[in-house]
């Protein structure tokens, strides 16, 4: 549709939460957009309720290497498909809290943590959160009722009340209870993380992308992998080099570029786009690209309860306890954590819950699957400079690009938080008569990827400014979780979307004033 040498188009890289949202905002406002997406486009009929089939269809399986605290073979779990990881996501959409965006001022100096305050405050982001919640149809906002509670939620709620917790509900969810805005209603299928067959769960594949297409200003190029950003001597991006579905190298010229590949891929693209002026990677004069990688503290507790739960039934994370999200160093750690529902298939549990065990002691537990309940802990992860995404010096992937290396170092704060949080979770389940409990710690690949191109006022210590524009390159924007200076304890996507809505407004304003 658009010519490769049309230097008036905006190029958006990635079609997930960040890229899909940005592309639609621009297209709705008359800007021509080319969206490069490495993955294939699926039809709704491709979504089947089978985790393994879907894993083969849309998960990012190109090699990535994990080091230190990251899982070696599969350090991060993202999607490679139109819609990005909004196909996998479970659609919990809590906002950050004000103090979490002022982490340095609130927590003080912490050894080993590269803590900062965000360059913007919550009040500045709030209107965009509101806009995002309306756009996604988030339950518990805009007069949209909460989802009904599943059995697993009821277990969580009862246990939480026994411990005196009060702030408990079925979570703010980007899941329709009733059909809304072209999407179906939730049938409580329980397969949210494998693609939602009813479209009840918000995914850009069937919302932002299709809306953008209706404008006539938008061209999606799926199976097109961006391999390099091209820049001129004036520190401006001039275009994007990519490999199309046939493996042919193309260059799309660009007026400006928004990168939303999810932190590991956004980092890789910047690091691979070296120039004479930026020998360490484009927009990396600070040396901060790839550093301060955060992924949240994530563990789970599974309990054998005194009666049947059938926790696989129902929207997976529609249930939360917020009482521990506060900052209270008296608990022995900084930052807070959520307790939320989660469920697992027999296969997942078999492979993670009883490591090294076999024989009857193993099968006796598995045969009590009906009685299992589970809770997940999601806590704040502090920025550690050496938690870092880099390029492997030798290994190349099928595109000929260096393989991503994810080096994740636990800050000592993590262990203190995990010990406290798991103890609370155990007490919750014990108060209901759980007969056995199983810890799932250090078994999850990262589903949230943040921090590797942090925003800040100072170009020497941050990659992007308060709008998510790179300090070094005036027409290069980062539009994903890489921007987060700190991460709070909330799931990141609604914040990514709010930041992108704010960024889009800024870009449109610049265009109006002929400044971009």
């Amino acid at each position, binding site marked *: 549709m658009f010519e490769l040498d049309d230097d008036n188009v905006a190029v958006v890289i990635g079609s997930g939460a960040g890229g899909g949202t940005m592309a639609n905002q621009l297209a709705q406002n008359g800007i021509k957009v080319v969206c490069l997406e490495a993955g294939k486009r699926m039809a709704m009929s491709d979504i089947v309720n089978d985790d393994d089939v879907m*894993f083969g269809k849309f998960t990012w399986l190109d090699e990535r290497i994990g080091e230190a605290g990251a899982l070696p073979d599969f350090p991060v779990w993202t999607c490679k498909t139109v819609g990005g990881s909004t196909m996998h996501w479970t659609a919990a959409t809590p906002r950050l809290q004000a103090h979490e965006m002022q982490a340095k001022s609130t927590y003080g100096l912490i050894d080993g943590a590269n803590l900062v305050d965000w360059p913007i405050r919550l009040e500045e982001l709030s209107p965009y959160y509101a806009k995002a919640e309306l756009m996604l149809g988030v339950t518990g906002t805009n007069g949209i009722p909460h989802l009904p509670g599943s059995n697993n939620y009821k277990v969580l709620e009862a246990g939480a009340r026994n411990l005196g917790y009060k702030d408990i509900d079925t979570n703010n969810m980007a899941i329709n209870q009733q059909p809304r805005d072209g999407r179906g209603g939730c*049938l409580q299928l329980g397969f949210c993380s494998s693609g939602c067959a009813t479209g009840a769960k918000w995914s850009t594949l069937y919302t932002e992308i299709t809306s953008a297409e209706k404008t006539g200003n938008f061209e999606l190029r799926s199976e097109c992998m961006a391999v390099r950003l091209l820049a001129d001597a004036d520190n401006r991006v001039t275009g994007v080099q990519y490999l199309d579905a046939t493996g042919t190298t193309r260059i799309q010229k660009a007026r400006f570029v928004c990168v939303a590949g999810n932190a590991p891929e956004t980092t890789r693209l910047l690091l691979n786009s070296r120039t004479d002026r930026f020998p360490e990677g484009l927009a990396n004069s600070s040396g901060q690209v790839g550093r301060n990688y955060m992924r949240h503290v994530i563990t789970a507790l599974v309990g054998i309860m005194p009666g049947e739960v059938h926790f696989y039934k129902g929207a997976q994370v529609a249930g939360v306890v917020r009482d521990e999200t506060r900052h209270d160093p008296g608990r022995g750690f900084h930052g807070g954590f959520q307790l939320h529902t989660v469920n697992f298939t027999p296969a997942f549990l078999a492979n993670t819950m009883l490591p090294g065990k076999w024989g009857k002691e193993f099968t006796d537990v598995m045969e009590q699957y009906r009685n299992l309940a589970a809770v997940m802990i999601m806590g704040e992860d502090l920025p550690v400079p050496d938690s870092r995404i880099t390029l492997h010096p030798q290994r190349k992937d099928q595109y000929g690009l260096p393989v991503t290396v994810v080096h994740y170092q636990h800050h000592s704060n993590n262990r203190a938080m995990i010990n406290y949080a798991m103890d609370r979770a155990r007490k919750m389940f014990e108060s209901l008569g759980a007969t056995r409990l199983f810890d799932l710690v250090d078994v999850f690949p990262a589903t949230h990827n943040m921090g590797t191109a942090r925003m800040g006022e100072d170009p020497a210590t941050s990659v992007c400014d308060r709008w998510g524009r790179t300090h070094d390159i005036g027409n290069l924007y980062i539009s994903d979780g890489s921007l987060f200076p700190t991460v709070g304890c909330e799931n990141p996507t609604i914040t990514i979307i709010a930041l992108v809505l704010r960024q889009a407004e800024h870009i449109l304003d610049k265009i109006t004033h002929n400044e971009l």
Partner: protein
Amino acid sequence: MSAISRRRLITITANVISVAAVAGPYLPALALAQDNRTGTVPDDGVDAEALATLVHDLFPHEAIAAEVYTGIARMIIAQEQGAAGDLMLLQTGLRQLNEQAGGQEWRSLDASQRLQALNKIADTEFFKTVLPRSRALLYLRPEIWQLVGYGGNALQQGGYLTRGFDDIDWLN
């Protein structure tokens, strides 16, 4: 797909997030294994029945039929054939088991003797490979799902909205 990347996929899927486990259509070797489930035993020099007994002893569910375990054994054989290109690991491992069986075939021992022998080889590469592999494959089987009470796909039936997602009755 190269042998290395096939092995890598199997490792990812078997060891890391078994949501992934191994039965995806993207794994050619496995498609082969599934074809073999009801058909002939592959001509590979691996004692599939002994391997099936091993899978059973690792994960003994009384209500699960022997054929299910045999199916898993054949899939493992096909995976090894596809991934490593040879079956040395399995052949050697089963031989080691027989060596622990005091001159008999390990498979023909009684259950407690089999376990004793199995415990003696628990540190071998063979054991450490077969354990996670069989686990990842077995717990994807519909027979197991039925046994443990996992309903899986309920799309055709209209989901769990009207089929018990909120019917818990033992909480007060």
